[in-house]
């Protein structure tokens, strides 16, 4: 039992550390690579256009092509492809498969049967149309997630926030997002520290009632701390002349290569529209 507890504790801490590292590491973003060198505004626009193309297209090979393009971009941006798949393949597309799975069957998507079998005494079949729409759905999610992860991996989050501002997202909103991001980090630190502190003072938390008490006290404490911190941060902003509308400095510069990239992605987008017309 004690062993077991230990194991859970250890893995929870490991998850925390992993989470911290995966969200907050700017390791990929600071490498030298193709996407890292692009102007962030153009890069965000490129990804956005590719996303639209993947959403509009109704052809599996075409979306697969965009996905392939995304992988190539990851490769030339010195992102390890296995690492990239680890980030994108597992979770989100997996869930989308769950959502898409019912569409496979004739109950939801009537059409030509591909395969028939009995389930709980009911005759069901996978239809051709069902398979196609589930496949497209899955591919779209996979491609969209990959594109977004690619953008997030190759751009420092501070720059990403600035890009939001360029696209006229209200400043105050961007500022709050930035602070949230920072707080999540700070709170993870606090949780980790508190945990270590409790451990060092009480040794192992043996009785679960006592453990619950400590945890409950800590949550209240965390809540109070976040409130205090908010007040103090606000004071610190006021102290340095903040008066409601934060001012920032933009220093983006787009070059010829950036515009070329944008051109390429725009033509992909136009191609997707044209090809839809053609298919109909």
């Amino acid at each position: 039992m004690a062993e077991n507890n230990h194991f859970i504790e250890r893995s929870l801490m490991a998850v925390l550390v992993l989470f911290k590292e995966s969200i907050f590491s700017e390791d990929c973003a600071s490498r030298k690579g193709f996407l890292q060198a692009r102007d962030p505004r153009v890069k965000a626009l490129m990804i956005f256009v590719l996303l639209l193309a993947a959403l509009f297209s109704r052809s599996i090979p075409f979306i697969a092509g965009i996905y392939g393009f995304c992988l190539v971009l990851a490769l030339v941006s010195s992102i390890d492809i296995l690492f990239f798949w680890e980030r994108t393949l597992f979770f989100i597309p997996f869930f989308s498969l769950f959502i898409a799975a019912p569409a496979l069957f004739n109950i939801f998507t009537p059409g030509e049967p591909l395969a028939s079998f009995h389930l709980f005494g009911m005759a069901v079949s996978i239809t051709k149309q069902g398979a196609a729409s589930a496949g497209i759905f899955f591919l779209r999610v996979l491609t969209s997630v990959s594109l977004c992860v690619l953008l997030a991996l190759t751009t420092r989050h501070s720059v990403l926030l600035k890009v939001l501002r360029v696209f006229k997202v209200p400043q105050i909103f961007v500022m709050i997002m930035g602070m949230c991001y920072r707080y999540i980090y700070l709170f993870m630190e606090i949780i980790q520290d508190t945990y270590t502190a409790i451990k060092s003072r009480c040794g192992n938390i043996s009785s679960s009632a006592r453990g619950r008490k400590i945890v409950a006290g800590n949550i209240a404490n965390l809540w109070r701390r976040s409130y205090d911190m908010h007040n103090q941060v606000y004071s610190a902003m006021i102290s340095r002349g903040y008066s409601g509308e934060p001012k920032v400095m933009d220093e983006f510069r787009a070059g010829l290569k950036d515009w070329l990239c944008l051109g390429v992605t725009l033509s992909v987008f136009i191609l997707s529209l044209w090809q839809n017309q053609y298919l109909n």
Partner: protein
Amino acid sequence: MAKSIFELNEVYFSYLNKIPALNGVNLSIEEGSRSAVIGANGTGKSTLLAMLDALVFPRRGSFRAFDKEMSENILNNDEFCRFFRGRVGFVFQNPDTQLFCPTVKEDIIFGPLQLGVAHNEVVRRLEGVAATLKIGHLLDRSPHQLSIGEKKKVAIGSVLAIEPEVLLLDEPTAGLDPQTTRDIIDILIAQNKAGRTIITATHDLHIVDEISDVVYVFGFEKKIVKTAPSSEVLADQNFLQEHNLIHIHRHQHKNLVHLHSH
């Protein structure tokens, strides 16, 4: 006589109207002077600095700054607010709350930008501050991922970039290594030589002598119990001990035990 910048007269302040933090404080700070505020934990040093930075206001008594009676109202006036914020800079005790931007660089330029300093001038100040504090290599990092000492330096940098006439520093050297402490003190001395007023709250008696001419000692009753030249305060061992500012050290040399204060 030099112009006085801050005047506090019988000032009372309490948090949430129940936790007293200042109990009748009198104080007068002259332009270009160097002062230190010392006292045990929880005696109101940080609260005093927050008041001098017009972040909290007296519940009773009067607080005048730059010949104006200070109140929340007067700071709602944009022009005066900008005037005041551009002249008084405050380095908070806790750098975690002071640094709130995504990168060190943005934190340093935050103040000047808010105060409407021209962009090329902002860049000049950024470079100047980075060079003075030797934090050039940290500019693109996230402030929250720095060590405490590095954070402290960045926090000081973010205030120096405003180029204020008055520097309020809350424990600027707490947790810093000896060389960094030295660097910070030298910076403060240089700032003062350039005509700036510095007011430092500290527990570090070793630095008091160098960064102040006048020392204000806060007592447990949360008011100033002594105002005197720094050399005089530092020489009075009994007084310092009474206010938790030094402690008796017990050494054992071979079989001999001897006591002395630190």
